[in-house]
């Protein structure tokens, strides 16, 4: 007996911004094949739920009461509350044809006459994202059926306590395109292809997609191959990783719009997967220094401000090194500025020591902190000049047999360690500082180990251990990597 097709919800519009295939699978795949969220996703969801509870507890809301999953009854109850002019409705139900929306908040917009409502959602994130706006546009579309016209603005209550307005007119063209695609997917008029990307490892459908991609050695598994590049390569007969590993970059550059150097790099990446070993590209960009610092920040999971500032300073001494931890913390947003300034001052004491980090988050956060709290004669420019992104350095110097260059996978390739499991922040405790600090310290130490391992890998033949491998037939699997660092042709 065919399964009843699910209605379209705000979640579909949200997820479509991340992965269209998720939306397709949610409509048409057996839900029993969904996997539980991984630890990081579970932690984020718990944080989101807790944030929402905290916010709602401070608001004077009413909720529609209806039997579980009886959304028609839910809509009737919601409309009664709206008709009676309830100021703030939590988890109201809006229906359309094959569509169900449950905005977190319906807030009466006072203007006299028939009550009109604005839509809002509560988000743990401290930044308003397009996915959030898509959900709100979806709810606005449903609400337009009952108001003479849909609301032009909506609002988000964000993780750092701010309310941000969303201009729905701005996102309208994008919403219409997204809604049409979701509709087409639901009706099987459009089936998007699976492709590997950053969200895959936490996705509920990873048990469906990843084995398919791995079985055929899909090109999207190769770091640096976007959907457009995948199609460009397929147009010229390159369909999987094994074939990519055998291309002639000069010939293919003449037949595609991909530059020869890009194709060379992609071929190397494919070969690294095939050979189960790293390849050298260019010397590592950082030099040995007597004093080195590794630094990271962590945000408060609920309040969104930068709560922990941590750096690990090592000084070469004899055959070993001395170490020192530099730490500042901010329990609440008001303490963020002073903590930032003290941390900056500590970092600036070693004028020439490189400061290592992994990924763009640290410099981006520094720029945000400067915008909020910066003063004249801050040593920030000096600190900026000393930053070295270990992720960028490794990507410019080594091609590793991994699918993505995040810290866990780079560590796996260079150190042979399995990805660290993230212990979810407890949703019930208020003071999460010790947990956050410990996780941060572990990350900093891992970044340092990865950096040193990259330097050794560049210099010697003893190299990676665990990695992803690709068989000659093109199938991908995790396997112990062979030793041997290979020079790039």
């Amino acid at each position, binding site marked *: 007996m065919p399964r009843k097709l699910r209605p379209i919800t705000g979640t579909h519009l949200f997820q479509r*911004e991340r992965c269209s295939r998720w939306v397709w699978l949610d409509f048409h795949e057996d839900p029993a094949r969904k996997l539980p969220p991984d630890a990081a996703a579970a932690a984020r969801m718990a944080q989101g739920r807790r944030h929402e509870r905290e916010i709602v507890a401070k608001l004077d809301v009413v909720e529609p009461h209806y039997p579980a999953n009886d959304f028609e009854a839910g809509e009737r109850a919601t409309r009664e509350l709206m008709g009676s002019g309830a100021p703030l409705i939590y988890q109201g139900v809006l229906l359309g044809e094959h569509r169900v929306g449950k905005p977190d908040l319906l807030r009466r917009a006072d203007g006299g006459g028939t009550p009109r409502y604005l839509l809002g959602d509560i988000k743990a994130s401290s*930044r*308003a*994202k*397009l996915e*959030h*706006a898509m959900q709100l546009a979806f709810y606005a579309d449903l609400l337009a059926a009952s108001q003479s016209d849909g609301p032009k603005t909506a609002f988000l209550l964000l993780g750092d306590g701010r309310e941000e307005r*969303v201009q729905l007119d*701005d*996102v309208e*063209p*994008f919403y219409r395109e997204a809604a049409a695609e979701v509709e087409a997917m639901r009706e099987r008029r459009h089936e998007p292809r699976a492709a590997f990307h950053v969200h895959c490892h936490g996705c509920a459908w990873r048990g469906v997609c990843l084995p398919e991609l791995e079985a055929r050695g899909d090109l999207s598994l190769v770091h640096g191959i*976007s*959907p*457009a*590049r995948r*199609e*460009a*390569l397929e*147009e010229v007969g390159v369909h999987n990783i094994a074939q990519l590993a055998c291309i002639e970059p000069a010939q293919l550059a003449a037949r*595609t*719009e*991909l*530059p020869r150097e*890009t194709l060379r790099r992609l071929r190397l990446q494919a070969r690294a997967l095939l050979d189960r070993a790293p390849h050298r590209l260019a010397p590592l960009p950082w030099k040995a220094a007597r004093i080195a610092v590794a630094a990271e920040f962590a945000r408060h999971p609920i309040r969104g401000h930068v709560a922990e500032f941590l750096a690990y300073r090592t000084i070469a001494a004899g055959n070993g090194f001395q170490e020192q931890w530099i730490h500042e913390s901010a329990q609440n947003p008001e303490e963020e500025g002073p903590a930032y300034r003290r941390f900056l001052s500590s970092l600036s004491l070693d004028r020439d020591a490189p400061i290592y980090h992994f990924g763009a988050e640290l410099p981006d956060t520094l*720029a945000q902190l*400067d*915008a909020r709290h*910066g*003063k*004249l*004669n*801050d040593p920030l*420019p*000096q600190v*900026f*000049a000393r930053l070295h992104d270990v992720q960028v350095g490794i990507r410019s110097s080594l091609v590793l047999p991994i699918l993505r260059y995040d810290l866990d996978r780079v560590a796996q390739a260079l150190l042979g360690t399995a990805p660290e499991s993230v212990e979810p922040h407890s949703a019930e405790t208020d003071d999460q500082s010790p947990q956050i600090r410990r996780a941060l310290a572990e990350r900093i130490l891992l970044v340092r180990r990865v950096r040193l391992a990259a330097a050794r890998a560049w210099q010697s033949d003893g190299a990676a251990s665990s990695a992803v491998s690709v068989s000659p037939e093109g199938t991908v699997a995790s396997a112990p990597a062979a030793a041997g660092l290979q020079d790039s042709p």
Partner: protein
Amino acid sequence: MREPLLRYLQRERLAERRYERELRALSLAERVECGEALAGLSVVSQGGGRITVAMSEHSAKFREGDVLWLGDGVRIEEGLPVRLVRYDGAARQLHLELDGREEASPLRAGRELVLDRRSMDLAERFALAVEDVYTKTNHPIALCLEGKLSTDDDEAVRREAEIDGFRRGLDRTQAAAFARAFARPKLHMIQGPPGTGKTRLLAEILSACAERRERVAVVAYTHRAVDQVLVRAAQRTDPRLVWKLDSSRSEAPELAAAGVRRTTSAERGASTGPAIVGLTTHAACRAADRATFDRVVFDEAGQIPLPHAVGAMRLGPRWLFVGDHAQLPPVVAGEHAEEWRASIFAHLVERYPSTMLETTYRMNSGICDFPSRAFYAGNLKPSAEASSRRLALAPGGRFRDVLDPQRPAVLVEVPHRGAAMRSRREAAIVAELSIELMAHHRLPAEELAVIAPFRAQGMAIREELERRAAIRGFRPASWPLVETVERIQGREREVVLISLASSDPEWLAEQTDFYFSPNRLNVALTRARTKRILVASPLAFRVRARTLEDVPALSVFAALYRETPRIDGASVEKEIEVDG
């Protein structure tokens, strides 16, 4: 505001130094590749503090006014400190002058030379100016920046000046702007969208100032912008009143031809009688310690950083800012919060009423329509004469669909994928269209321009132009301008082709600030008078925003795609193939 202004200057200086250090760490080939060096130069002439060098191609990012090192490309700072005065594209020569030195030893003939970027540390001068303003309580400049000045018109003055404006042949909004320049007690801003006669209006204002026996300083960011205003001013008033404050030794033939004299003295003409003195923001900051004027007029104020304007504002008590914050903003090297990256013009229009010139004399209706709605709330309209202008074509020829004069703006859709900064397919189409316009339709190369977002695409287009012209036996006397947006602001052509180059939405999503900047798009779309041909992959318009901040800019691009008539690029390619 003192602290953010000083912090901006400090950060800019440090960013420039850091950038210079990073450049020095690159090899010559790498510096040339990224456009920060020009190699293979040979001396053509040297003397009187001036040096002319020949080059094969100006592929660097250098612009007129930039300060550079001329040397061997290895011991960079042992080279000669020079300033780039003029780029002669036809002769493939660069005219330089020594900077801070009178003479140099003769450069050996036959020696290959390299030009490298040199940083100019002027931050301290600007910082002193900021301190000067903020050490005084309620300094008028501080009040101006904080939005506290009155902008009430003197109605009698305004009416009389408006009549004067009409008498001078100004149109309605030009006359209104002219009137407010005199009716507002201290401050006015005039927004001049593309082709609205801003320079002409400025010349009339300066002429009127001279008639009122005012001493006026005209300030702009570059020498070229200053010179343009002074030449026009000299055509409208007694040239003997017009001066350029300039310590350069280079000839300035346009100024000389207009009768504008040059002086190294800031006090020139400021003691008695009217005078119009042009100077760059850098020179103005220095001059403000020694000279005062009745009025300070800023041109291209949309490109003057806020702290740089503060220095020049000290030249006088009344300020007129002319610019357009919908076109290119200031070039900023460092990390700053958004509000401090703004120009003086953008800063002030948020705080005070301004006048926008609403009639463009450049673009026909088909070219003007989209930019007007997207960037000027529909308020920019072509004049009657400009509106009906159409590209004149010879009978016959290829690509009639694309070149159709009755469709002034078209998009040639080229179905390529995966390209980042360069598309050979687009370069080929642009080259063939250009050759057809020049060879068959006799469009002078000087009336044609090609705009590309990346230097790599510009180079690919130039290569294709030369290669395909050679195949067709076409030898033009000169080549059309092929430039990035930054180097084309202020210019116009009968026909403009725009090659967007990219077709990788995921890659483009990382470039939104640059690639999808509404200001850059505005400049690109408003250079043409009668025909604008966009050549692009549909994938360039299918980028998903990552943040809500990106949505407005991406919306404009999406609207451009929807509203521009599209032509199948594959059919254009077929026409090229069939033609051999």
